[in-house]
C-alpha cells in the first residue's frame, strides 16, 4: 500500500471537525485519516468531464491542497458532463469556474491554479509540490507524459479513460506497481481511434469514472482499502457491468522496467504521431466555401450533395444531401455518378476530406469538400441550422 508522505502534522479546527464528522466517526478515516487528507496535495490535470467530479469530491472530502492544470474555456457543449461548470461560466476559463465551485463547497481547501498546457518542459516542476497526480485529460500525449513524469518522480498516477459508454480506470506508477506503458507500450496512430468529440460520450460516464478516480486518490492518501494497483477496471455503463483484468509490471517496460530507455521526458506529440501545429487533413483536398456553394445552388447549378456523417447526425440537421456514412463509402461508391459535380460534407470537414480523398482515388475528378462542414454552413449561410 502506498502511503503519501505528509510533510507536516496538521490539526483540524472545530469548524473542520464538524464539517468532516461523517468521516471522523468512521474507523477507516477517523481523525488521523482526516489529518492525512488535509495534509495531502493532489494535482488534477484537466477541469473537464473527469476532472469535475474528481475535484469536487476531493475538495468536499477535505484534501488540503488541490492543484488544477487547465488552459481551456467553458463551452456550451461541455455542460452535458462537466458538472463543475454552469451556464454562467460559458466563455470563462475553466480554472476560474472550477476554483469558485471548489471554494464554495469547501473554503478550507487551498486551490492552486495552473493555467497552462501540461508539457514535457513543465510537468516535473509542477508535480514536485504534489503527492498524487490524477489525469483527467484523456488524450494520448498527456497520458504518456503524465505516466512517464509520475514514474520519473515516483508519484502515483490515478488514471481513467472514457469512450461512449465504456471506461477504464487504474492506479499506475506506484512503487513496485505497473505503469501505463506496462499495459500499452505505444499509443495507436492518430485517426485509428475516435475521440469523444467524434465518437460522443454518455454524459454520466465521466461522472462514474471521475468518482472512481477520486475514490482511488482518497484510498491512497488514507493508506487503506484495496487499491486498483495491478488491476484494470473496465466499466460498461450501458450493461452496468464492472470487470477487472490483471495488470503486471513489465520488466521490459521502457520507462519503469529493469533497464529503462526513457530516462527523461520526451516529445509526446511526436511519440503519439501528432504533427506539431495542426497540419489538417483538409488542406490537401479541393474545397468549396459554404457561401460559394450557396450561390451556385441558388443559381441552379447541378451539384450533388453527399453527406458522409452517420444517420443519427443526419437527424440533428442536414442539407438534404445523399447520406453515405464515411465507413460505408468504399462499398457504396456505385450510388454516385462520377461525371457529376459532387460536394461532400460532414460536421466540421474532416471526415468529408477523407471521403474526397477516397473518391478522387477512385476516379471521381469533380468532387470537392465543403470547407468547415455543416458547422460552417450554419455560421456563414443558414443560422437556423443547429450546431452540435
Amino acid at each position, binding site marked *: 500500500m502506498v502511503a503519501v508522505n505528509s510533510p507536516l502534522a496538521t490539526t483540524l479546527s472545530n469548524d473542520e471537525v464538524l464539517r468532516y464528522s461523517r468521516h471522523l466517526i468512521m474507523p477507516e478515516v477517523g481523525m488521523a485519516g482526516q489529518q492525512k487528507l488535509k495534509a495531502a496535495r493532489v494535482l488534477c490535470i484537466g477541469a473537464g468531464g473527469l476532472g469535475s467530479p474528481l475535484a469536487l469530491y476531493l475538495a468536499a472530502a477535505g484534501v488540503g491542497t488541490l492543484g488544477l492544470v487547465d488552459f481551456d474555456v467553458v463551452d456550451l457543449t461541455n455542460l452535458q458532463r462537466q458538472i463543475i461548470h454552469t451556464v454562467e461560466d460559458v466563455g470563462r476559463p475553466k480554472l476560474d469556474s472550477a476554483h469558485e465551485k471548489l471554494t464554495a463547497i469547501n473554503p478550507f481547501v487551498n486551490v492552486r491554479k495552473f493555467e497552462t498546457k501540461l508539457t514535457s518542459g513543465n510537468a516535473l516542476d509542477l508535480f514536485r509540490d504534489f503527492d498524487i497526480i490524477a489525469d483527467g485529460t*484523456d488524450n494520448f500525449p498527456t497520458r504518456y507524459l503524465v505516466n512517464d513524469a509520475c514514474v520519473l518522480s515516483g508519484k502515483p498516477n490515478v488514471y481513467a479513460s*472514457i*469512450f461512449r459508454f465504456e471506461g477504464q480506470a487504474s492506479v499506475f506508477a506506484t512503487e513496485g506497481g505497473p505503469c501505463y506503458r506496462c499495459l500499452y*507500450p505505444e499509443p495507436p496512430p492518430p485517426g485509428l481511434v475516435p475521440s469523444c468529440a467524434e465518437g460522443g460520450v454518455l454524459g454520466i460516464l465521466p461522472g462514474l469514472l471521475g468518482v472512481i478516480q477520486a475514490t482511488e486518490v482518497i484510498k491512497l492518501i488514507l493508506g487503506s482499502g484495496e487499491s486498483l494497483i495491478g488491476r484494470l477496471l473496465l466499466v460498461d455503463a450501458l450493461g452496468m457491468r464492472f470487470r477487472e483484468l*490483471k495488470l503486471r509490471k513489465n520488466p521490459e517496460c521502457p520507462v519503469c522496467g529493469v533497464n529503462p530507455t526513457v530516462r527523461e521526458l520526451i516529445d509526446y506529440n511526436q511519440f503519439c504521431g501528432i504533427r506539431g501545429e495542426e497540419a489538417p487533413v483538409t488542406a490537401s483536398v479541393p474545397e468549396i466555401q459554404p457561401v460559394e456553394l450557396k450561390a451556385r445552388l441558388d443559381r441552379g447549378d447541378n451539384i450533388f450533395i453527399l453527406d458522409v456523417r452517420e444517420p443519427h447526425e443526419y437527424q440533428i440537421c442536414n442539407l438534404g444531401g445523399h447520406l453515405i456514412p464515411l465507413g460505408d463509402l468504399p462499398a457504396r461508391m456505385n450510388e454516385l455518378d462520377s461525371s457529376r459535380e459532387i460536394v461532400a460534407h460532414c460536421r466540421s470537414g474532416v471526415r468529408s476530406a477523407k471521403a474526397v480523398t477516397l473518391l478522387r482515388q477512385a476516379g471521381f475528378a469533380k468532387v470537392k469538400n465543403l470547407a468547415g462542414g455543416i458547422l460552417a454552413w450554419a455560421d456563414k449561410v443558414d443560422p437556423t441550422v443547429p450546431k452540435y
Partner: protein
Amino acid sequence: MKVLIPTPLRQYTGKQASVEVSAHTVGEMLSDLTSQFPDLRQQLFSDDGKLRRFVNVYVNDEDIRYLENGNTPLKESDTVSIVPSVAGGEDNGRSQ
C-alpha cells in the same frame, strides 16, 4: 468461446458486442475472428502480422503476454477480451 468486443471495434463486427468463436488457442481464435470480420485485421494486427502494441488480449482476467501469447490454450468456458487503449479526450491536451 465468447470473445468480448470493445466499443471502438464494434463498427468492424457488425455492431456485435460479443462474438462466438471456436478455437483451441488464442492464435486460432484471432484468425477465426478476423476471417469472420476481415475489417478487424487491420485494427488488430500491424503490417508484419504482429498484434498491435495498443491492443491487449485477455483470457479471462489474464493478459496473454504473461501466458503463452498466441499459443495460450483456450477452453470452451473461457472468456476472451480484446482491450485496446482508449482516449476519449481531444488530442490538443484540453480537458475532456
